[in-house]
């Protein structure tokens, strides 16, 4: 075959559009970051994460900061396990947190005066993992016939039963005891747990626990990463894509599902034990539905099935709520997020600029209408905003409440509008009212506002990026 013919045959059957597929996805900046992370060798990624986390216990003694760092790593490890069950294998496991709790309580039983048992830590951890496997298997076995929503309901039921039992098994009459026996400590939990003690060293300070949790996170990451790139990982992804085809192509789908389930429950159990030792106690509240929701938010935010996404997700969902406790910082983040959203959502750029100017002009008009009104207080970027937007306020609480309700009303109105111009026109007063509501009301009540903000951020983010930050948009071909 001569050269020319060879060159043209190279292109035969190759659709240029398809050939550029990866190029197209990388135009998206967030996906580009995700793809860049994927290109970094795994060992190097691990090293960067290790150094990043290790910097904190080495550089700071601030126990508040260390507690947040430890929580990020703990939630990342937990979310990795859930990501394996829900992201890789596609099983909607809502009982995941129960296994976290089983790990915590198992540790408490084996390392406290509650039963008077003090086993050495390595043995305890092995028993904890074995217990996680056992309970995962016991719940998984009957549940594997269920799919999708049905599996979700069955596993959620398991979590609720677990929560109820840990809270209420305080007066149990056993046939071989005289009086009632306290089996779980009830709402008061089990306290005064032993510290972790590994290789002859006992963890006594928060620094030690941060290091232990980071080591656990790195181990879990390595294990999950290795399993993902193996026959088992491919089997999980295959059964998530098409259960029937996976089974027909020789993959024992029931056993693979059970394996994913058990894998997840053992990771959760281990995390629970480390958490219990760190906190020095276990309470039913530690393992309840809010934790489950946070974990699902982490993996969905990061992108189902993405390992770097889990880290970013747990960072966002643990650190951002803490940052929002500070009013000045919260205001800066809030206005920054609003402006950023405008810039991203409104194209071309000059329109976004025009909207911001129009909001400021509206503020000027309000000032003219009420020249005597006092300005609302503000800190950080909030002070600047209250001067530019000129938000006159007399009866701050009432004005704030009305403004907040009015913003919601305008947002609903906007959802029914079809013309882009009309949407922009409604947007201007909405933004001004939103700023008014923020300055007078929302920023004054950070404990409530931060949850509102996180909720709003999740709603907005999932609308912009349905597949999460580093997730791949799944394609269904009809």
């Amino acid at each position, binding site marked *: 075959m001569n050269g020319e013919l060879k060159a043209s*045959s*190279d292109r*035969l*059957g*190759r*659709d240029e559009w*398809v*050939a550029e*597929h*990866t190029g197209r996805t990388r135009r998206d900046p967030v996906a580009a970051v995700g793809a860049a992370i994927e290109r970094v060798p795994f060992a190097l990624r691990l090293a960067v994460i290790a150094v990043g986390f290790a910097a904190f216990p080495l550089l700071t003694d601030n126990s508040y900061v260390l507690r947040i760092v430890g929580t990020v790593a703990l939630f990342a490890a937990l979310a990795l396990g859930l990501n394996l069950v829900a992201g890789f294998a596609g099983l909607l496991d809502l009982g995941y947190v129960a296994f976290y709790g089983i790990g915590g309580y198992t540790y408490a039983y084996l390392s406290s005066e509650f039963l008077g048992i003090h086993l050495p830590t390595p043995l305890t951890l092995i028993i904890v993992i074995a217990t996680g496997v056992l309970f995962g298997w016991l719940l998984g076995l009957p549940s594997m016939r269920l799919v999708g929503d049905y599996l979700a309901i069955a596993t959620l039921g398991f979590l609720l039963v677990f929560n109820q039992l840990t809270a209420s098994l305080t007066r149990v009459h056993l046939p071989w005891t005289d009086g009632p026996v306290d089996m779980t400590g009830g709402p008061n939990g089990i306290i005064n747990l032993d510290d972790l003690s590994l290789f002859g060293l006992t963890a006594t300070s928060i620094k030690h626990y941060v290091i232990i949790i980071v080591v656990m996170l790195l181990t879990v990451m*390595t*294990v999950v990463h*290795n*399993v993902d790139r*193996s*026959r*088992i990982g*491919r*089997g999980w*992804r*295959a059964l998530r*894509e*098409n259960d*029937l*085809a*996976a*089974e*027909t*192509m*020789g*993959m*024992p*789908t029931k056993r693979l599902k059970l*394996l994913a389930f058990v894998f997840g429950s053992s990771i959760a159990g281990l995390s629970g034990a480390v958490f219990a030792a760190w906190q020095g106690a276990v309470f039913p509240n530690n393992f309840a539905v809010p934790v489950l929701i946070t974990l699902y938010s982490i993996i969905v935010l990061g992108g189902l099935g993405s390992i770097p996404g889990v880290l970013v997700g747990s960072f966002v969902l643990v650190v951002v709520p803490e940052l929002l406790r500070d009013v000045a910082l919260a205001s800066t983040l809030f206005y920054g997020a609003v402006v950023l959203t405008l810039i991203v959502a409104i194209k071309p750029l000059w329109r976004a600029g025009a909207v911001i100017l129009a909001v400021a002009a509206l503020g000027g008009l309000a000032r003219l209408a009420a020249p005597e009104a006092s300005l609302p207080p503000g800190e950080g970027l909030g002070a600047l905003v209250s001067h530019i937007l000129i938000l006159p306020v007399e009866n701050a609480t009432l004005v704030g409440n009305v403004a907040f309700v009015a913003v919601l009303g305008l947002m609903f109105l906007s959802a029914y509008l079809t013309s882009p111009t009309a949407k922009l026109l409604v947007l201007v007063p909405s933004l001004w009212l939103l700023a008014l509501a923020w300055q007078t009301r929302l920023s004054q009540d950070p404990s409530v506002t931060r949850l509102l903000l996180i909720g709003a951020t999740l709603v907005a983010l999932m609308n912009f990026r349905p597949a999460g930050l580093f997730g*791949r948009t*799944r*394609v*269904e*071909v009809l």
Partner: protein
Amino acid sequence: MTAILEVDRLSHRFGGLRVVDDLTFEVGEGEIVGLIGPNGAGKTTVLNLITGLYAPDQGDIRFEGESVAGLAPHKVTERGIARTFQTLRLFLNMSVIDNVMSAAYCRTGANLGQIILRTPAFRREEAATRLRAEELLGFFGERITGYRFTEPAYSLSYANRRRLEIARALMCSPRLLLLDEPAAGMNPSETSEVTELIGRLRDEGGYTILFIEHDMGVVADIADRVIALDHGRMIAQGSYEEVVADPSVIEAYLGRGTGITR
């Protein structure tokens, strides 16, 4: 010729409807057998019964002399039967190479410990699996090779998805390959390519092939033997010429008493 597959008095009902009714046939080692019949004749159900997706109500299916009736589908595949689907069932959001490699599951044995520690044995097996997958994809020329390996399966054209499904089935290392309408939805040149491919699969790959096809051109060109079904019963079998000339086959396709049959 020894029979690799024996279907023995097989019956299956959906409620009161007999979709497969007392069906008996054999497929010999190295044979290419075409399964034809009008829509609703029970052809795909026969494939579903053989591959274990349904358990037969009555009768037996023997593969290489051993019964596979009622086995779980993955066990049937492990014995050496693999198939493709009429309505494609690819793992669309996985890469092309992962689609094929995933089907090596029952031919590989690395356990969890080896995988977590990435032992040399696991790496060797993984490398061999990848090599085999690339080799199988190479069976189709340049169409799904090279840069396509890492593309997600959904980016492939319809014809290439059919090719990928065949490559995936081959990764199960079957001795009997069941193809459900391999030429469905293909244009004439792609159809003739599929015809040639089925021949090559037998001649070069050594697979025994049972296929369902509505395109009589493909059946005429490649089938050693044709089995015609109607209402779940076998109405004729033999060479293509014999079967299409059989009055009951003509009746099944065209009805009785039309101008054409007279």
